[in-house]
């Protein structure tokens, strides 16, 4: 059971996707690792580490019938994955503003140049069709410290609301 794969599935959301897919993986002899599953714009998306003794084709074959029945696109990549490699974020950034092209690129570009290693990013478009509102939440590691990130965000001006806070993690 040495081989790790990244299994991605995307398709229209409906009840029962997770149960059906993981049942197929279980009966296909797979071991599940870390996963992120999320509804995005009416679609359901799965990114999941899967351990399987066979090759990528064999893993895909184990899931293909369930994916086909559920109308999901299926993709399997061999990865050099390992468990127990968590990185603890030390900073959280929130961005929101009227939705306009380039917000994410501008904010993450400034943060990357100032040393932010993103561990987790979620974004949503809220508001209404006429007045869409962009909401972005980022967690990451400030490799050059939080001050550098604050300075980078200050340079963005006031077209978006950005707040940044250090994250102290309880260990107890």
């Amino acid at each position, binding site marked *: 059971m040495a081989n790790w794969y990244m299994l991605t599935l995307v398709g229209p959301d409906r009840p029962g996707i997770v149960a059906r897919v993981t049942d197929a993986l279980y009966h296909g002899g797979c071991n599940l690792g870390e996963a992120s599953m999320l509804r995005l714009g009416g679609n359901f998306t799965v990114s999941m580490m899967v351990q399987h003794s066979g090759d990528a084709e064999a893993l895909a074959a184990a899931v293909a019938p369930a994916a086909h029945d559920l109308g999901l696109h299926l993709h399997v990549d061999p990865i050099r994955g390992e468990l*127990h490699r968590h990185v603890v974020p030390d900073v959280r950034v*929130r961005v929101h503003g009227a939705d306009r092209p380039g917000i994410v690129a501008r904010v993450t570009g400034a943060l990357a140049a100032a040393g932010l290693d993103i561990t987790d990013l979620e974004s949503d478009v809220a508001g209404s069709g006429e007045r869409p509102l962009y909401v972005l*939440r980022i967690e990451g590691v400030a490799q050059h410290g939080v001050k550098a990130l604050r300075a980078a965000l200050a340079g963005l001006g006031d077209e978006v609301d950005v707040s940044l806070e250090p994250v102290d993690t*309880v*260990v*107890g």
Partner: protein
Amino acid sequence: MAVLPVLTYPDPRLKRVAEPVERFDDELRAFVADLECTMEAGPAAVGIAAPQVGRLQRLILVDVSSRPRAAGHGRLVLINPEITAWEGHVVGREGCLSVPDYTGNVIRAERIRLAARDAHGVLTEYAMEGFEARVVQHEIDHLDGLLFLDRVVSRRADLRPRGGRSPAGR
């Protein structure tokens, strides 16, 4: 003083409710010294609860002085602690000596009032906020058989920081 072995989940002793301390004697104080030693041996630990080393008594240690951003009361031995008032809620990140290699976001009260005895049985009241208040709530959960795993919220569960502007407030 000795570093005691720390129980890790799913050890069933971590899910039991601890008993109040009744004897404030030398044996108790020797245990507190061992528990301090154990906390200091943990990687960057800011608190520890007696049940984490298998002693099912209502006793916790808290010390946030290693975190430069956290205001606190220094090293505290809190015995039979009772939270008497809560105010506000805030999301923060937590990990646990008893749950290696996992951290998650947990909602806790932002400010608390606390009554607890020290190792000589003297009762003191504390007002705490922020990170120190979070650590105390995390440790008191251990006394009630709860782990932060019981309280982890979705990454999407987010509360605005104090003074933050509401994205929908217009």
